[in-house]
Each structure stands twice: as structure tokens, then as C-alpha cells.
């Protein structure tokens, strides 16, 4: 059963003001309805005027994603009734979008580069935010905050060319990185990237899943929906063309109230806004170095492997951090940063921006000099990150080494411990003699444990072999 996925990505542009009014977009720390004016509140008589910067940002994305920008584009009204929509229409773009076509190259399922084509990119305004109130004294009702109303969005629509949730995640990672590199989007802002997905099994009806509010939820939502559809096919149940909502907390998709009538949005050109003729602006837009170019440069300039280069450039903050700390030892900095540091950060849900550069750099020097073992280095890293998390000043790696006595000691000083371990583990010793593969690792592990990681596993292995020869 072939899976076909297309995505619609809504990205908030990080302009200073909203798309059609001068209200500040920096509302997240403020109370409800404090970043609102007659325009974004939809007061009678108010009129929209387009934010030039938002158009430039959208064009920047269009250029970076290799889109064509038609000579004329136009805003249109999408009419529907919902309390978060202050004017009862969303100003969006319909048959004359800002940009057409374009593509994003990703690593495909087979590990080779795969080109995912885009249908279009258009601009639109975000609706307000609803809070659903349960049944208290006042019964059920809705609370509305219009602070988000009018925040500029771009909607990027892909062709249905993604074939698995994993590919979808890779696509989104790549897209997100590109948007970040372009400086038009703030990944730290909650809800700044939202995804709708069209999912079908080849030969069956297509289902739209809305409301995937974090890009991390995409893989989970898609996996759930594909499993659901495959299950239905196996049970000979009919898949109906419908819109489903992703319930982030439960990790499931549920059928949206089926009011087919609501789909007649009665689009027509927005009479309050002038046409846009901005295709010529594209030439004047300078693009920064984008993820692919930076990846290639990392491989060339630092001799970093393809995988490490992909990882290190997959996030703007990480790429910048790497270049700050790499110094003249990329062979140590790359694996440490891509494999170890990133894992520790993910585990702590900690942004790379919080890593203390000085201390990390010093730690890499220590690890590179061979003064401490890798195990000790990881221990030190964890300690430092935990200190940062707790809000205290991170200790210098050198200080930690002396405080905990982590300096690597010579293998010979462990001869006695090794001998004890061998004596205590007859079974493993005979397994090793019999040529069983895992046995030596077990023995090394036992020694490491006994030395609290101060020993170099390679040396230990040599000592074991040495002792067993005797």
C-alpha cells in the first residue's frame, strides 16, 4: 500500500507588525486583547493596508525555495463564520498567489537526495485564538483573544510527493531550517509553524488532517492516520474524503463535524487592497547562505562527514554554534557536537544557545588531548549542562577534572583491578577464550565500572589480552 502525503505549512513571519495593521506581533507575554486595533478587531469601517516587510519576507522564501513569482498577485477574501475570524472573512490569496512552483531537496527514504515540489506559496492573516470553556455556572462558551488576529502567515503547499511520515519529518526539518536561515521566522515562538496534511493510500480517498500545531507532532499524526487508513482497508471499510483534526494530547485524529456546506468559501478579490506587482523585487532580495550550501561548505572546509554536516547545518543555531567552537579540531568538534551534545540537549529540551561556549570549547580540548577519557568527558558535559539548567554558573572542565579526579590514569595502574575482574568472571573469560564476541566487551565494561570511567577502554582491552596470555 503506497502512502501519498502532501503538506500545507503555515509559517508566521517575524515582522514587527501585523499583516494589515500596525499592531505589534510581540504579544505572547501580554494579556489577551492587548495587541488589537480597529483593523485586526474587524471594527466596522476599518481598512487593511499591507505590510511591505511581510511581502518582502514572503518573496525571500519564494526565492529561496526556487518559486516563480507571477507579475500580478492579489489578495482575496475567504468567507466563513467563526468567532476567531474578526471580519467573518480571512484575507488570503486565491487564484493569484504570490508564488508558484518551487522545490525543496531532502534526504529520501532510500538515503538519496529527493526533490519535493511545491505547488504554491501565498500570504494570509492568522485568525485569533479561542479558548473553549467547559460547563461551569455559565455553561459552555468560547473565549476569544484577538492578539493573534492579523499576524502575517505564509502558506507553503507541497505537491503530494512525500511517501512516509519520516520523509514528511525530513521535509519539515529542512524547510524549517531554511526559514530560520532566511531570518523570517522565529522558531522559539509557540505555534509559529503549523501543519495540515493530506494523506491517502494510493487508490483510495484522501483525508485532510488539520490542527497539527507543532511540527514535531507531524510524524506522530501521520503515522496514526496511515495506520488508521490501512486498518480500514484491511477491514474492507470505506475511507471517506473528509477533514480530521489531530488531537495533540491523545496523538489521534478525529473526524471534524461534517458540514460540507462550510466548504463554499465564496472567494472574491479583496476590494480594499491594491493589486501587487512585485515580481521585480525578487532580483533585489539577497539570500543568506542556506542549509544546503552550508552543509557543502562544512564538508569542504572542515572535512566533516555528510551525515554530520547535515545534522550540524539542520538548525541555524547549531550551525552557528559549531562554527564558533570548531577551532582547528573539526575532527573532534563535529562528532562531539552532532552526536553527543545534540543528544544531551534533546534529552534536556535545551536550546543550543544556552550551551556555555567557553566551557564546551575547553572540554573538547581536554577530550582531544587525551587527558580524560570520552566517558569522563560526557560526564563533565552533563554536569555543565545540568548546572546551566539549574541556573548556576557552569564550572570549568579543568576544575571538574581535579575536583572529581577524572584525569585519565595509565593503564598499568589498573592491572590489579583487571586481574580481580578476570578472577571474578570465569564464565566470561572462558567465553572469550572460546571466541565468543560479546565477552570481551563485558569484561572491559566491568573494569570501566570499577575505575569509574577513568580508564581508556582500548588500553584495558590490551591489558586483558596481556593477562590472559600469561
Amino acid at each position, binding site marked *: 500500500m503506497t502512502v501519498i502525503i502532501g503538506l500545507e505549512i503555515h509559517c508566521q513571519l517575524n*515582522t*514587527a*507588525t501585523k499583516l494589515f*495593521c*500596525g*499592531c*505589534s506581533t510581540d504579544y505572547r507575554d501580554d*494579556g*489577551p*486583547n*492587548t*495587541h*488589537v*486595533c*480597529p483593523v485586526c*478587531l474587524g471594527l466596522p469601517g476599518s481598512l487593511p*493596508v*499591507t*505590510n*511591505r*516587510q*511581510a*511581502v518582502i519576507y514572503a518573496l525571500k522564501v519564494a526565492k529561496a525555495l526556487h518559486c516563480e513569482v507571477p507579475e*500580478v498577485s*492579489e489578495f482575496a477574501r475567504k468567507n466563513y*463564520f*467563526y*468567532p476567531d475570524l474578526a471580519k467573518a472573512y480571512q484575507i488570503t490569496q486565491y487564484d493569484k498567489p504570490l508564488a508558484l512552483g518551487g522545490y525543496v531537496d531532502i534526504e529520501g527514504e532510500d538515503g538519496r537526495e529527493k526533490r519535493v515540489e511545491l505547488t504554491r506559496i501565498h500570504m494570509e492573516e492568522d485568525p485569533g485564538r*479561542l*479558548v*473553549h*470553556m467547559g460547563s461551569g455556572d455559565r*455553561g*459552555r*462558551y*468560547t*473565549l*476569544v*483573544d*484577538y492578539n493573534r488576529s492579523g499576524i502575517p502567515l505564509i502558506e507553503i503547499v507541497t505537491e503530494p510527493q512525500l511517501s512516509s511520515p519520516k520523509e514528511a519529518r525530513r521535509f519539515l526539518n529542512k524547510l524549517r531550517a531554511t526559514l530560520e536561515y532566511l531570518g523570517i521566522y522565529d522558531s522559539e515562538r509557540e505555534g509559529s509553524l503549523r501543519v495540515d496534511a493530506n494523506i491517502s493510500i494510493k487508490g483510495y480517498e484522501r483525508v485532510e488532517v488539520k490542527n497539527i500545531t507543532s511540527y514535531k507532532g507531524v510524524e506522530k499524526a501521520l503515522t496514526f492516520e496511515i495506520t488508521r487508513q490501512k486498518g480500514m482497508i484491511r477491514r474492507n471499510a470505506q475511507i471517506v474524503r473528509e477533514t480530521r483534526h489531530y488531537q495533540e494530547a491523545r496523538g489521534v485524529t478525529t473526524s471534524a463535524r461534517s458540514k460540507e*456546506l*462550510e466548504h*463554499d468559501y465564496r472567494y472574491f*478579490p479583496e476590494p480594499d*487592497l*491594491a*493589486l*501587487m*506587482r*512585485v515580481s521585480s523585487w525578487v532580483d533585489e532580495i539577497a539570500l543568506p547562505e542556506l542549509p544546503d550550501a552550508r552543509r557543502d561548505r562544512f564538508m569542504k572546509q572542515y572535512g566533516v562527514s555528510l551525515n554530520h554536516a547535515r545534522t550540524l547545518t539542520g538548525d541555524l543555531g547549531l550551525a552557528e554554534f559549531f562554527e564558533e567552537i570548531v577551532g582547528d579540531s573539526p575532527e573532534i568538534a563535529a562528532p562531539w557536537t552532532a552526536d553527543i551534545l545534540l543528544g544531551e540537549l534533546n534529552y534536556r529540551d535545551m536550546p543550543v544557545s544556552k550551551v556555555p561556549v567557553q566551557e564546551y570549547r575547553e572540554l573538547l580540548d581536554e577530550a582531544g588531548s587525551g587527558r580524560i577519557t570520552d566517558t569522563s568527558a560526557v560526564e563533565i558535559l552533563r554536569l555543565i549542562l545540568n548546572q546551566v539548567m539549574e541556573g548556576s554558573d557552569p564550572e570549568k572542565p579543568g576544575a571538574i577534572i581535579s575536583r572529581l579526579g577524572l584525569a585519565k590514569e595509565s593503564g598499568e595502574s589498573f592491572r590489579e583491578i583487571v586481574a580481580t575482574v578476570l578472577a571474578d568472571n570465569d564464565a566470561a573469560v572462558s567465553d572469550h577464550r572460546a571466541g565468543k564476541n560479546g565477552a570481551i566487551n563485558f569484561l572491559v565494561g566491568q573494569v570501566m565500572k570499577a575505575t569509574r570511567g577513568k580508564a581508556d577502554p582500548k588500553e584495558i582491552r590490551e591489558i586483558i589480552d596481556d593477562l590472559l596470555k600469561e
Partner: protein
Amino acid sequence: MVSEEDVAHIAAITDVGVDASELKLFTGQFNAILEYFDILDSVEGGNGEPVGPTNIFREDVVVQSLSQEDVLRNSTDPEDGFIRAPRVI
């Protein structure tokens, strides 16, 4: 020709409450009006090239928003700075 069902349908999707007696009245009127609009059938082409000014933009400069008090003033029974609306789910 539109039928009473057509008018009821459009009333339903636009949430314009139309009762039974009005439905009959509106349907008759709509047919007369739409028949008059049929003259447009003989117009060549559609939509055409849009006219009017192009490229009207404002700069990305923050302008003072309304006070929360002014935002809420005309709403019904606001709550903790939020505006209240009937339930949607």
C-alpha cells in the same frame, strides 16, 4: 430559476435565519431579480484584468494598539480580558 430549497440552502450556509413564509416571498423575488441579472449572460469574457492602483504598502512600524478597555467596551460580558462568544464545539 431558483427553488425554495435553493434559497433555504443559501440561507443555511450563510446563517441568515429565514422562516417559512419569508422563504416563499424571497424565492419569488429572487427569481425576478436573477432573471434581470441574466442580461449579464450576453457580456463577453469574465473577470478581466483587474484595474486600479497597485503596490500600496505601509512600512513595518508599530502603531499604538487600542487599550484593552476600548477593545472590550462594545463586547458582551467579557471575562478576564477575553471576549465571550457562544460555544463552537
